[in-house]
């Protein structure tokens, strides 16, 4: 994203907007992770607490989920840059 066409005051406000958005994005990632790993790992509803197996699954799922997000993020950044290259300037 290239916001250089905006003036300084506008860019300052956009920066604040981005910061606020990052907080929201982080919370969204967190809730998505929890729901996804719960859905994929919790399957026994006869015991009130997570079984060892379920806990282990959640742990690995959380790790994998974060690594997946990171990897998508890297590819996304590369491809977005390429996409903008012909358009910018």
């Amino acid at each position, binding site marked *: 994203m290239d916001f250089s066409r905006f003036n300084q005051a506008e860019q300052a406000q956009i920066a604040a907007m981005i910061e606020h958005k990052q907080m929201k994005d982080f919370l969204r990632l967190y809730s998505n992770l929890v729901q996804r790993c*719960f859905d994929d790992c*919790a399957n026994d*509803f*006869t015991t*009130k607490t997570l079984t060892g197996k379920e806990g282990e699954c959640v742990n690995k799922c959380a790790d994998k989920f974060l690594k997946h997000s990171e990897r998508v993020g890297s590819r996304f950044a590369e491809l977005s840059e390429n996409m903008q290259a012909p358009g910018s300037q």
Partner: protein
Amino acid sequence: MSFFGGNSQPQQAINPQNMMMAEQELEMVTDLFNRITESCYSKCIVTKYEQGELNQPEGACIDTCVAKFFQVNSMVGEKMQKIGQS
């Protein structure tokens, strides 16, 4: 405002930062509730709908399901904090 005096009830300032924090907290709790409702419906409710009541196994399943969702939520929270600190 108190500059001009006469205002016996002092006006309290609203800090927009605080409002944003409260809104975010509110939204997180609602979002958590909505996700639990959704996930536990899939996990516990038999969708043949032979009766409109929750039967005993469904009810028991919901209780456990909500408890386990909270546990997963805390587990992941602690994990993320450790990652954040390292």
